[in-house]
């Protein structure tokens, strides 16, 4: 333990209004849920926030609500709960799949979807999936509620549209209206307990060999989880041909900005990104 424990304070909010009240106090309280990211920083002596408000026990954040056009996931829902949810398994299988990629079973029992979003890692396992499902985030403060498309949430590396007094309360996923072709693959450092080197999640509607609509998102290839809109634009409305696949691949390689770091190289990430896109497009034809 490399942090100086007496310097840290923790309080647990009993319900959502209390949590929002604490965050609005201007006293520097930051939310903590499962702690699977923050406690690692804490142990390493690298956690910058000294005042933590736990929202894990906040009942309002612990529900999955299904309406006719939308499934709304409480931000404090854990990966394990996502993996076990029948509605998510049936309609958003990539989300369940990505939850199974994250950390260990112990991590999955504690880590939450809202925490994964707010930790804002470009390598977050759930992020490309949420982008591919066109998720919308519901942010709340004592001042009110706002809805932000998840594709617009991340502004830069660890920078996001989330004020200090705001909490992510729900993640809304629009329910699919027709048959959607889904693909998700994580390339990590090993098969379990791994951080992704590259990940790709995609959904598409294909009719008679023509791509009616497509959403492609990637992790670990840019400062933020990246929705690959230029690549999507190349594909949308087109018939799947080898020429189109090559164009999409070239566009993707221009659109991503992978780096070399302790886990991998920019060259590897670029090659794998293109290869995963290729694998997906081939699965559509």
């Amino acid at each position: 333990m490399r942090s100086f424990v007496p310097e840290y304070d923790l309080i647990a909010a009993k319900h959502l209004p209390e949590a929002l009240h604490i965050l609005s106090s201007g006293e520097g309280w930051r939310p903590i849920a499962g702690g699977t990211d923050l406690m690692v920083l804490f142990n390493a002596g690298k956690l910058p926030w000294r005042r933590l408000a736990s929202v894990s026990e906040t009942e309002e954040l612990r529900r999955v609500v299904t309406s006719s056009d939308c499934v709304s996931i409480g931000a404090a829902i854990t990966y394990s709960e996502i993996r076990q949810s029948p509605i998510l398994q049936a309609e958003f299988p990539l989300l369940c799949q990505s939850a199974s990629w994250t950390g260990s079973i112990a991590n999955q029992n504690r880590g939450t979807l809202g925490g994964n979003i707010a930790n804002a890692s470009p390598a977050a396992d759930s992020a490309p999936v949420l982008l591919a499902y066109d998720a919308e985030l519901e942010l709340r403060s004592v001042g009110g509620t706002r809805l932000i498309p998840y594709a617009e949430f991340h502004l830069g590396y660890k920078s996001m549209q989330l004020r200090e007094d705001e909490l992510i309360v729900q993640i809304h996923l629009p329910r699919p209206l027709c048959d959607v072709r889904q693909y998700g693959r994580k390339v990590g450092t090993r098969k379990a307990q791994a951080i992704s080197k590259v990940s790709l999640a995609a959904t598409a509607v294909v009719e008679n060999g023509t791509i009616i609509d497509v959403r492609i998102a990637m992790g670990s290839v840019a400062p933020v989880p990246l929705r690959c809109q230029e690549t999507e634009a190349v594909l949308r409305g087109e018939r799947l041909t080898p020429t189109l696949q090559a164009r999409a691949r070239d566009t993707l390689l221009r659109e991503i900005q992978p780096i070399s770091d302790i886990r991998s190289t920019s060259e590897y990430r670029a090659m794998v990104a293109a290869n995963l896109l290729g694998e997906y497009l081939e699965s559509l034809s």
Partner: protein
Amino acid sequence: MEYRLVGTAVPRKEAGRKVSGTAEYVDDVRLPEMLHGVTVRSTIPRGHIRKISFDGAIPWHEFVIVDARDIPGKNVVSLIYDDQPYLAAERVNHPQEPILLLAHADKHLLERARQNVHIEYEPLPAVFHLEEALAAETVIWGEDNVFKRYTIEKGEVDAMWSEAAFIVEGEYSTGAQEQLYIEPNGMIATFGAEGVTIRGSMQCPFYVQKALMALFGLPAEKVRVIQQETGGAFGGKEEYPSMLAGHAALLALKSGKPVKMVYDREEDMAATTKRHPSKTRHRTAVTSDGRLLAMEVEFSIDGGAYATLSGVVLSRGTIHSCGPYRCDNVRVRSVAVATNAPPHGAFRGFGAPQSLFALERHMDKIARTVGLEPDEFRARNLLRTGDSTATGQVIKDPIDLVRLQSRALDSIGYHEKRRRFPVENARSRRKKGIGFATFFHGAGFTGSGERFLQSVVTLEARAANRVRVLTSMTEMGQGTNTVLAQIAGEALGLCYEQVEVTNPDTAEVPNSGPTVASRTAMVVGKLVENAAREMKAKLPSHDFAALGPLRVTVQYKEPPGIFWDDALYRGEAYGAFSYATYAAEVTVDTLTGEVEVNDFVALQEVGRVLHPVLATGQIEGGVAQGIGMALYEKVVWRDGVMVNNQMTNYVMPTSADIPNIRVYFEEIPYEHGAMGAKGIGELPMDGPVPAVLNAIENAIGIDFDHAPVLPEDVLAKLAKRRVA
């Protein structure tokens, strides 16, 4: 011979306390008034210490602070050469080198204080790579950066090149590897009128004792070393505990209180020893029908900043570098050099995994050059009874290595898969391949080592028909307590439960040597067997109570007919070799470069298997570590610093990455090993890396010459080949 206990899977002696959570590891121990200790370490690879300042709002007067001036005896970690200080005084030679020690009752305040010690340096030029060290343009150790050199000469190598039908050359390298024992290093020291007492996680209590005697200028009876329950070691707790125990003891001496020092994972990975990085060059002369005419090997290892055990690691790597093959003309030249990294040290296999990796990759390369199947080429050259190794050691075992190799390959369906995979691979992005390695591992200390050790064990008969085994062999998860009790019980005709194995405590047990070199069961186990037989001869019945306490002590005597020449490096290098063929089946995903090991067969001849479950566990664990070394575990260095010193970024394989490992034994009892046992602990580390890389070559036709092979390497080579 029929045995009652040996060869059966009796419960482990310490299983109950481990399963119930009552086993006491060093971090579980709390002594009255105990302080915690931490280490302030260098942040540069090489330079002079100019200024140390104690900053921040820290109540420094509450702290016990130790530097090199507080050392009462010699400021060296006494091992082989006296070159490594306990605490750097004026100069540092690697990052993470200990400079100051701090102690305080409050662990958290202590950590904060550590962060507020600032040290100014005047940097000196540093050396980070083997080649740089050998070039010796910058000299950082001795006169030429060389810790140790060896040469093995056999026959007339130079005369053979002109006779060769093929001359095959290759260069192979391996990286550092972290032992990753589950329990980090930890020690508690107390100082009193009776001297210093150490409790901690360790492999070799008498190494720690010897080092502390020099550090404090104390006689042996004033330095007591007690092993706590130890959560794994793999060589990583062979020499480093002497350093940590000394640090804790220095703080205990100055504070007058017990001091506990336990590293966290980050510190343990960054500061303590790892497997030596290596480079091997092979040049081999082969006849047109695939027989080895001459082998020339250059083997070099990076020892880090101080000599520690590098010379000994080099020795084992050197002797194993020509493997279990018959070749009349051999020249091996080897060297261990200094770089400004934390010292590399003992790790399961001890140099042999490095040089055997090179050899077993090279054997596949020769087979390809000659146009023979890898198994056929090896079969033509494997040692037979009566042949001699590179050092001239004549193989006396009635071992048939060709048959052993065939059995392993049949078990994995090698030939059928060599035919089938290329056909299937042509249709798939996931390419399958199969490869193997045939190898041996010498058990016990090298050459005259066991003779110099003069190991001693004692058996003590006590009331109620109970016997105690007293040795310095440590239980670190591998099963020492269990197999020594089996051996003693077997020889005495007692039940397993009647034999107790004493926890190593230098005040109580004799020096049976270190728990290293696959020597516990074979060498020390034999001493236990001999002592037990002697005791049984003295006791007509098992009514020990009637006879009163009886102690029998025996000492190692070299078996007859063993000759080793330390100067020429010729003769009987090891009392016995264990032999093996390991075969791996892999799948290479050409989209991602990921390699998955799908099946693994490990067949070995290890003499008598004393405990089938423990023996199988040893093999499985070694293979898993080997797969880690082959495909996952890469230490990322930046100027002598391990920068991926976390389990997130230093990637060891999980159970999800390891296939079902199929373990098979052949047993040819070895007369000088306990009940016929030979060494087993290190053998399984030697084979997996070349077997896996040979399988990768079979899958995608790319011959990797370094380990680990990461997906990045695979994809880069595949892309390069596409362009070509």
